[in-house]
């Protein structure tokens, strides 16, 4: 870690490549939403031109030695247009915000929808916090792109063209000069050897790298402190930052030339026009100083949209990494086949696996390798075997988290491949190793199983799961908040909430995945008691390598490396 060299990661050379098409598609979709902002911006420019006309007229009258009375018109016009322009400015910003909000809303729903569609299999590859960062922060980082950059990009051409058209009407030669210096901007940028785009991107990439290193070291601060490297790393961080500064300034010294090109264009415009008018007025070839003042007042308006575009360019740069993260999300899986939805009898479900194979990770071989079994309605199947033998995979197929590669899985004879996910979810209740409690009350957490359930039904479920003794000790009973920021329930208490959920759902097929793996023996016995009562009258598939297996009676199936072990049949 004493390495002070902020070397770029070797493969990080072309980080923007995959996000390109993704971003173009989203920008095209958002263009329509940016139109109101661009329209308000353009109207603002029109009002600004009007103001310049009024101001120039008033100044001309002043130079002519006219009094207040003659200039009332232009002055009132100036004031009125100022108010209008202020109002248009507010509308411009609000419309920009609305465009950004609409895009964020769309992208967030798209991202979360993709994750929900990919389902629990996603959690095998990504941590939930990392996924949440994509939905919350990465989408947020795209705000500027849609709210500011897109309208600014639309105005960058339209604004200056509008100004030149007005100048053309007053003084064609001045219009030609303005147009020429306007074209000087991109031309000078080209001469400087870089487009403003490339330079800004390089600066941004460098910043991102320092930021990434900093985030990385801060996240791992416990590791650094416990290894006794805190001071060494602080110094390395300082060296890296200063090295980065030296390098970045080298890049910036070129990049700022393109900003200087804009300044040059502005200065040339002002100086050339001022001298032209001074000379014209002095030798009498120009008789209306008002026109000269108008053109000079319009020069800043000519450059304002270009400046706005340059300023918004950093919003465009910020979009790169965010778009990359979003573009990397899994494509939603193909929609279930358009077969007629099978109606599986809700009471009493028989389960059958016929030669089912499944692979999670090709390098590890098959997780299930030709598994077959039948569970008649109302009976219990106990899957045993060491961790990694395929027990959870069987349950995940039944839950619809994953589809088998080959073989058939049927519920009451209907292939689950022909069931829509919602229909399949209605048939099964599931209790895993550690139930996730949502940041809400215990009541809402139970009701999660069936949102339309009445309070009485929720309370009955809580009683069934023997939650009453727990609730009695809690300040607000069923309404006690749990989950993030709430009251911390123990593993056994959380498992009882899961039992209450399953009871409330009242599905005919109960899937239990090592439900007591994280409990101490006393708690385990209590939870098992609840599970046995829940199992009455339902078809049950239980995966367990522990005592839980002995608490249930039923057919046993021993799995080893994804295969059914023969000769250890009915218990």
């Amino acid at each position, binding site marked *: 870690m004493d390495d002070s060299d902020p070397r770029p990661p070797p493969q*990080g050379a072309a980080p923007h490549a995959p996000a390109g098409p993704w971003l173009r598609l989203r920008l095209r979709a958002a263009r329509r939403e940016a139109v109101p902002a661009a329209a308000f911006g353009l109207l603002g420019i029109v009002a600004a031109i009007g103001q310049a006309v009024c101001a120039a007229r008033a100044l001309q009258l002043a130079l002519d030695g006219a009094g207040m009375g003659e200039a009332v018109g232009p002055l009132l016009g100036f004031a009125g247009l100022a108010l209008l322009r202020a109002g248009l400015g507010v509308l411009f910003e609000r419309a920009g915000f609305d465009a950004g909000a609409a895009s964020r809303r769309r992208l967030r729903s798209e991202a979360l929808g993709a994750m*929900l569609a990919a389902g629990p299999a996603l959690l095998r590859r990504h941590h939930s916090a990392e996924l949440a960062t994509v939905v919350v922060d990465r989408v947020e980082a795209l705000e500027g792109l849609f709210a500011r950059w897109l309208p600014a990009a639309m105005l960058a051409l339209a604004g200056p063209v509008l100004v030149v058209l007005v100048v053309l009407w007053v003084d064609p030669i001045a219009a030609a000069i303005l147009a020429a210096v306007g074209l000087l901007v991109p031309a000078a940028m080209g001469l400087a050897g870089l487009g403003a785009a490339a330079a800004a991107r390089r600066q941004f990439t460098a910043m991102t790298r320092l930021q990434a290193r900093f985030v990385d070291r801060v996240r791992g601060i416990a590791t650094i402190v416990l290894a006794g490297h805190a001071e060494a790393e602080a110094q390395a961080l300082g060296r890296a930052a200063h090295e980065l500064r030296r390098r970045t300034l080298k890049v910036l010294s070129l990049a700022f030339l393109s900003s200087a090109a804009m300044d040059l264009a502005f200065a040339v415009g002002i*100086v050339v026009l001022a001298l032209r008018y001074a000379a014209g007025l002095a030798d009498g070839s120009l008789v209306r100083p008002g026109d000269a003042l108008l053109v000079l007042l319009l020069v800043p308006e000519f450059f304002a949209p270009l400046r706005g575009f340059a300023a918004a360019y950093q919003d465009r740069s910020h979009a790169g990494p965010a778009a990359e993260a979003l573009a990397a999300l899994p494509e939603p899986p193909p929609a279930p086949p358009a077969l007629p939805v099978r109606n599986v009898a809700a009471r009493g479900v028989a389960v059958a696996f016929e030669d089912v194979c499944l692979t999670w990770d090709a390098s590890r071989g098959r997780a299930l390798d030709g598994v077959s079994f039948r569970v008649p309605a109302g009976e219990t199947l106990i899957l045993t075997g*060491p961790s990694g033998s395929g027990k959870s995979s069987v349950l995940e197929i039944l839950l619809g988290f994953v589809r088998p590669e080959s073989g058939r899985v049927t519920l009451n004879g209907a292939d689950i491949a022909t069931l829509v996910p919602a229909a399949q979810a209605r048939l099964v209740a599931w209790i895993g190793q550690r139930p996730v409690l949502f940041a809400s009350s215990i009541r809402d957490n139970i009701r999660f199983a069936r949102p339309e359930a009445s309070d009485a039904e929720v309370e009955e479920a809580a009683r069934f799961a023997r939650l009453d003794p727990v609730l009695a000790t809690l300040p607000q009973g069923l309404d006690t908040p749990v989950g993030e920021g709430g009251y911390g329930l123990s593993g056994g208490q959380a498992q009882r909430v899961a039992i209450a959920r399953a009871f409330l759902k009242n599905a005919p097929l109960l899937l239990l995945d090592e439900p007591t793996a994280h409990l101490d023996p006393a708690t385990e016995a209590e939870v098992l008691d609840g599970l046995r009562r829940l199992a009455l009258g339902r078809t049950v598939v239980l995966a367990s390598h522990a005592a839980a297996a002995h608490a249930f009676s039923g057919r046993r199936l021993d799995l080893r490396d994804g295969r059914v072990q023969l000769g250890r049949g009915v218990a």
Partner: protein
Amino acid sequence: MSALFRIMALWRPQAGWMVAGVVLSLAALLAALLLMTQAGFTVGAAALGGALVAPVGAAVALRSLGALRIVLRYGERMATHDALFRALAALRVWFFRGLAARAAGGLGFRRAGDVLSRLVGDIEALDILYIRILVPLAGAALLLPVLAWVIGAVDVALAVVVVVLFALAAFGLPLLAARISWRESGRIAGAFAGLRIACLDTLAGLREVRAFGAEGRMLATVQGREAGLLAAQHSLATRAALAGAAAFLAGQAALLAVLVFALGQGNAALVAVAFLVVAAFEAVAILPRVGAGHAARAAGRVLEVADGPLPQAAMPPAPMPAGSAIRFDGVYFAWAADRPKVLDGLTLDIPQGSRVALLGPSGAGKSTLAALLLKVARPQEGRILLGGTDIAALGDDAVRARCAWLSQATHLFSDTIRANLALGLPPGATADDSRLWAALEAARLAEVVRALPQGLDTWLGEGGLGLSGGQGRRLALARALLSDAPILVLDEPCAGLDAATEREFFQALNEGAAGRTVLLIAHRLTGAERLDRIWRLSAGRAVAAAG
């Protein structure tokens, strides 16, 4: 706002550079003002008959001002960015040091990675402080007397009007906007937290969501929270836009005042004044919308973490004992006074060189034991002895040098494999490649690394090589084995790994850690561990378990 001053005080060593940036920025601003003013004056004078300045002189003045402005603007950009990078580096190093010194408070030890990343976001929010707040404010402070002086020479009453309006646009409205953004950013932060929790709930609970067919409901919840966030942001954006519009109107009112005054005067200088007013107000137009209140809140959060009181160190530390036997002696501990006790009179002996497992359900305080041993937390009662000496009397770093720590929170850095391994060595020490390879060999990772084209210099993490979960954990093991620490503290080292990978890890550990004391903390055993004693943590005490 005092938080912002505290942050600025951190930049004292960089003050020279920052002042240089401000000075150049002011010079560039003056050149811009003079250019506009001179342009107005030239045309105005010419309209009146060119009596005041000869066209030749005007041309020279305009051309040199134009050139000066370009050069100064360029210099300003370079100088302010140089100062910005210096300030940015100083702020990050200061934050890192502060955080490291206070990591003993538990932050970062208990999986707080997301909280930390958000703090990094707060640091980024402070980057605007110099270029977007301090530099324009300095410009405004310069412009105020310039306006008063230049316009005062023409007419005092007009100068008063313009100066008051300018003060409103450059100071009054920005202050008001800062107050608004301070208030609203609190609301926005709350809405953000709500959205984040809803997303985390949905994604951590993907299994529950799918099993209960709740996709639509969860999506609706997240959308609802998002709507709340957007509403809060909308309210802030509208107010900021209004503040900006008010500042704009102040500028227009000033210009109107100049026009009204100019009527009937027939004075070319007034054309110049009109151009000056336009340029001056444009220079401060950014100020009402920089979100200073947001930066102030961020500064507050950063200071809270990195600037609090330092935990007291034992002075001077006792000499390190020769032996490495560990004894927990009647230890009581709770993470906070209002939280339940996690250790309740725990007594436990771990002889030197033994391999001990400590089992217990999650939340039983197993990780607390590691935190206490590593001096990340200290017991409220009881003692922890290392080689017979109370660790409270020993230096933090000395104790940690004895104990190599490996948990699911052990971080692999976006850096080379070599640099990641070097974290196992004492700071500043280097090891020859043969030692690194021996450690990788012991962790059963050498083959994987040897197959990489860049070997030990392969970059890990974002944009680099993605190690699998098991390989990552074994690299952390190699790092731990590379250290000479006689004690290995393994806190759920295999959490989140599948069974086969877990077995491989323990097989590597069994051989690689020969001769060292091993304290394994887990909620269950796989059967692959080689152990001398097994303890179970129950009701805050260690109970002997079978084994």
